[in-house]
């Protein structure tokens, strides 16, 4: 139960100091960015969240990025809206959208909304640059941050809990 309660705090600490590779941190961050840019309350957002939690990427970095880009997404809405309009009104893609529209469950994904599709498109376009930039950042920033953060007792306690949880047998 304590483990469950401390889990969010642990995730933040883990994002910064866990022994994850910069690649996993960068992937988590890029995925979190896409989640942040897409409006919530649709299957696309739920699906992206499921990917974040279901793959071996850094969840903490992903959550931080999601929160950060959800806030930034409000300012990026006009750009996402324009991109969504451009995609949804493109005649060459009309057949694709119509087919998707008539598939079960796809209307719950909100793909036919300009901000959702534009946000997703924007996120996918920015995914690789964000991944590369954040990977370089984490590769440089991770060692000093880890050594600094491990000095604190709380971090050690959190990691102890994580270790104890992982060592449980049976």
């Amino acid at each position, binding site marked *: 139960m304590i483990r469950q309660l401390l889990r969010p705090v642990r995730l933040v600490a883990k994002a910064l100091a866990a022994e994850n590779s910069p690649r996993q941190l960068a992937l988590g961050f890029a995925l979190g960015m896409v989640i942040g840019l897409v409006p919530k309350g649709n299957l696309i957002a739920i699906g992206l969240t499921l990917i974040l939690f279901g793959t071996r990427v850094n969840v903490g970095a992903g959550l931080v990025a999601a929160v950060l880009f959800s806030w930034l997404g409000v300012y990026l809405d006009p750009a996402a809206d324009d991109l969504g309009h451009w995609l949804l009104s493109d005649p060459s893609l009309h057949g694709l959208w119509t087919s998707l*529209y008539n598939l079960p469950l796809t209307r719950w994904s909100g793909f036919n*909304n300009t901000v959702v599709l534009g946000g997703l498109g924007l996120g996918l376009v920015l995914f690789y640059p964000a991944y590369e930039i954040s990977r370089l950042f984490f590769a440089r920033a991770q060692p000093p941050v880890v050594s600094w953060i491990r000095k604190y007792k709380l971090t050690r306690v959190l990691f102890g809990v994580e270790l104890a949880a992982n060592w449980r047998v049976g």
Partner: protein
Amino acid sequence: MIRWKYLGPRLLLFGLVCAAYWFGLDPLVRRPRLLLFGLVCAAYWFGLDPLVRRSLISLGQAATGTKVELGEVRTSLLDSRVRLADLKVADPKSPMHNLFELREASVDLETRSLMNRKFVVREAAVRGLKFHTRRETPGNLDAAPGAFGFDLELDGDRVADFALDWLEHVGATLQEEIEEDFESVKLVRELIQRWPTEYEQLKSRAESLYGQVDDLRGMLQSPSPGTNPLRSIETVQRVAGQVADVQGQIGQLRSDLERLHQQLLDDRDRVQEATEHDVERIRRIAHLEALDATTLSHYLLGSETGRWTRSLLTSIRQGRKYLPKKVDTRQPVRGRGTTYVFAEPVPSPDIIVRSLVLEGEGSVDGRPYQFFGKIEGLSSQPRLLGEPIRFAARTCGSIELALQVYLDNSSDPGHDRIAIQCPRLQQPELVLGREDQLALCVAPGTASVSVVLDIVGDELSGRLQFQRDDLSMTPTLGPKLGGAELASKLEDAMRDVRKLEAAVLLSGTFEKPQWTLRTGLGEQLAAGVNRVVRQEIEAYRDQLLARLDEEVSTELASLERLVHDHQRQVLDQLQLGDRQIEEIKLQVASRIQLPKSLMGKGSPLKRLFR
């Protein structure tokens, strides 16, 4: 790359939920981890309902602009069913009342349509529906929507105004103090004032002559015997001269009396002429155009039928506000971004209610009634559904009413038909018209009301029919119109009117409706009202004529008596003067000792003294 540690347990638990659904909860109870998962699922279940409840309240408040309260929500995702309990929606126009409240509502959705984000209600039922119930707390939110209003053009109102004018004219006629303005009476009174003045002048002139004659007599009697006869001759000559002058004045006075007598005759003619003028005026004032039946109908029923019509149209307009608008094509919806709508193999509306059963109760004037109804074919895009909305309802209890509504917006122009049948409508006591003028107090009874209304596009046509066979009416009249006395005569006149049939024909557009009233009541009543009013006015006219005749005769008689008295007095004085003049003449003749032959008839001296 897949994090099975995260995904695996969730998939496993999902499978366990499915297993629990099929095989029961016992395996879960035996395993603590599965029980924990069950608790998580329970939390999800319990969390879903408050979420739906909150969403419904927000949606309802956004739609109505007033407070929406919802007691309980139960959702079942497995069989796509939602149940609501104790829903209360405040009335935007009256914050201390609910627009409606319901005890229970259940909605059974089609699961397959939900996959395509379509809400197709297979069956829905609303029970314990009540309208306009009292609230304990105000139900207004910060921004209340505007109240419904109607710019209803009612021709009947104008006609009713005319009826009021007619009644006011009758009242004014009966109340007019016309005798104060009789010209003939005024003229006679003026003559009575004038004639004594004229005769006073004549009388003073007669008295003056009488004095002069006395002086002449004194002059003749003053000289003593033995005085100089020549002086006597001078005196006699002077007296003779003055006698001639006095005689001339007497003659003038007589001719003035003659002139006044002639003037009296002329004045009498003038009085006669003025009397005829007064009679003509009385006849003209008492002449009244008959009250038109249509005018009376609108005066009596215009306000009541107008109220019904307004109420009916306002209710329909309010209902139409909440009905789905005609949607030709499904356009992108603008919210956060724009939601595009693409072609479907079989286009269908986003929301369809195939069947909605309504059960509820209400009250009119404190008398309760129950109603049962069913709505079919309700949809958010009627044109896509291609079938009309059909609503049938029936009430029982204090009101027996059958309602059928047919709203066909599947083609252009849309055609809405509303039919209401109310065979036994209990009516309280009604007051038709205005109590300070003419009013009819209709005793409580049972009426039959039917309404058929067609709205094609925006064009409105319809008929509101009202019938009552047990009519019992008591008229009342304002004091200006004759009060209770005339009202009792009117009541006798309309004793045979036992039936009331009225029809309101609606036309124009729904935004600017017009109505025309058709009823036989006005015709039946107008005959009675006209007869009674005419009798009253004729009696009043005869009374006025009799009073005029009496007053003129009395005043003329007193004038003639006055003139006669004064004339007699003046004539008496003149005759007295004549006798004295004769005596003076004889004295003059004796003074100058003239033989009587010289003073006899035809003598030169006699001529001299004339």
